[in-house]
């Protein structure tokens, strides 16, 4: 596996070393490592020649730039009112029961993290969720069980 220095070097080669490169680099780290560690923050600061405080400031602002360890698959369930009205609480409890975690937690095998998020832009097809970058809509408890089973059995293409 690439170490964090190699990851950051490769990303800065791809996106450049200007201030505009910071967000794409941080996004690239999350894609590879599922979160931005303190080591990663130090590496990015070194490569872009800015302070670690600045990198941390930016990283901690954005909800998709996780600075806490996350699972391989981050589930983000929409909590906005329209998804709510269409039963997102049932989806949430189904996921919690199936994965045996609570909202905000990561499974012990580091495969799943369950989070809530604000409007995903699927209000006409709620409840909706993201699993990493993939959207799932019109969820029902049956549907969510099938989707999670597929992830559990590694049947989902990345």
């Amino acid at each position, binding site marked *: 596996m690439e170490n964090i220095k190699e990851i950051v070097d490769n990303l800065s080669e791809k996106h450049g070393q*200007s201030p505009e490169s910071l967000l794409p680099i941080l996004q690239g780290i999350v894609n590879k490592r599922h979160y931005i560690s303190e080591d990663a923050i130090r590496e990015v600061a070194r490569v872009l020649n800015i302070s670690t405080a600045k990198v941390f400031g930016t990283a901690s*602002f954005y909800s998709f730039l996780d600075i806490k360890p996350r699972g391989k698959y981050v589930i983000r369930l929409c909590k906005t009112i329209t998804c709510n009205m269409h039963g997102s609480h049932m989806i949430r409890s189904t996921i919690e029961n199936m994965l045996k975690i609570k909202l905000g937690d990561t499974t012990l095998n580091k495969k799943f993290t369950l989070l809530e998020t604000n409007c995903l832009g699927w*209000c006409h097809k709620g409840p909706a969720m993201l699993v990493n970058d993939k959207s799932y809509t019109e969820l029902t408890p049956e549907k969510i069980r099938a989707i999670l089973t597929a992830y559990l059995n590694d049947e989902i293409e990345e």
Partner: protein
Amino acid sequence: MAGKKLKKVDLIFNQECLTKEYLKRTLDRDADELLAELIDSGLRGRGGAGFPTAMKWKMARQAAGDEKYVICNADEGEPGTFKDREILEKVACKVFDGMALCARVIGAKKGFVYLRGEYKFLLEQLEKDLDIFHKNLRDIGFNFHVGIFLGSGAYICGEETALFESMEGKRGEPRNKPPYPTLLGYRNKPTVINNVETLVSALMVTQIGAAEFKKLGTADSSGSKLFSVSGDTPRPGIYELELGMKLSQFVEEFGDGDTKAVQVGGAAGFCVPRKRFDETVIGFEGVPTGGSMMIFNSSRSMFNVIKNYLDFFSEESCGQCTPCRVGCQQLLLGIDAVKRGEKDPAYIDSMLKLTQTMKMTSKCGLGQSVANSFASIAQNFREEMIY
């Protein structure tokens, strides 16, 4: 009383992409002539705020300097809005052509689409569409390049100056205005930033002409607009409708027969109760909207609705200015305290005053608009907030 039937329009999604020849003819037109057409159309921004589009373009055109930018704001995050995703999914070519049109008018060579992280799944297709777009521009000899910048899950980055900050690698904290983006925008250069739909509408004006465009809508709200319809409705989805309709007409068409209130313009918009449906006009002369129309029937608790919005605002407030940061948190605590009976119902009036303070003193639209939904729900559904 229902008025005339709602007029459905199909301009945004119906047409094919412009042919290369047509695009060339458009971009070969005199920039002042294009601008005059846009001014004449009366087109106003489709993201929600409704700033006259031609004014933005004109100011950026007049701004000094060679380095200018066109930015497409695809950070669609307002609860209840999902039309921009559909535009980018189905007719991204029109968005890019609209950006080229703007580049022609203001003299920009570079543009960006700021795509919200939640829509990353669109990236692959958009990049393919961009390849075709760039090839077309090369063929017709127009020097303009568009890049895609991905957001990372922050509602506030839909605020134009926060979006620039974000692209510059900073926290998405809105800047003071003025200076406006047309003078000092991205990288402190003159920048036009438009909503996805606005760019398509601007292109449409040059295609069908201002006169034809103005036949739709009213004097203050010309043209058609995409509406994202959700909530208690048998027909959720995206509809292109004429601006200036009455809310009662809308409810007749999309309600489930038991509509108690419609939230027009998302969490930052207004909640209109049933008794006002007939007198409420959807448009800039009445209640404006970026397209979000959330319908609630009488089984819904408006307390839950406002609580959901306040939770959203508290979380998405960037936190740099006190009225918004503390205001949102206190409102959220306050409505719970009233509901539990720990605070007197008159506390609602203190909270209404607080939202007025937030409206006057917050730095950007987020904190300023909390008063819209809070006041319209607290005043019209006061009993639901107490009992």
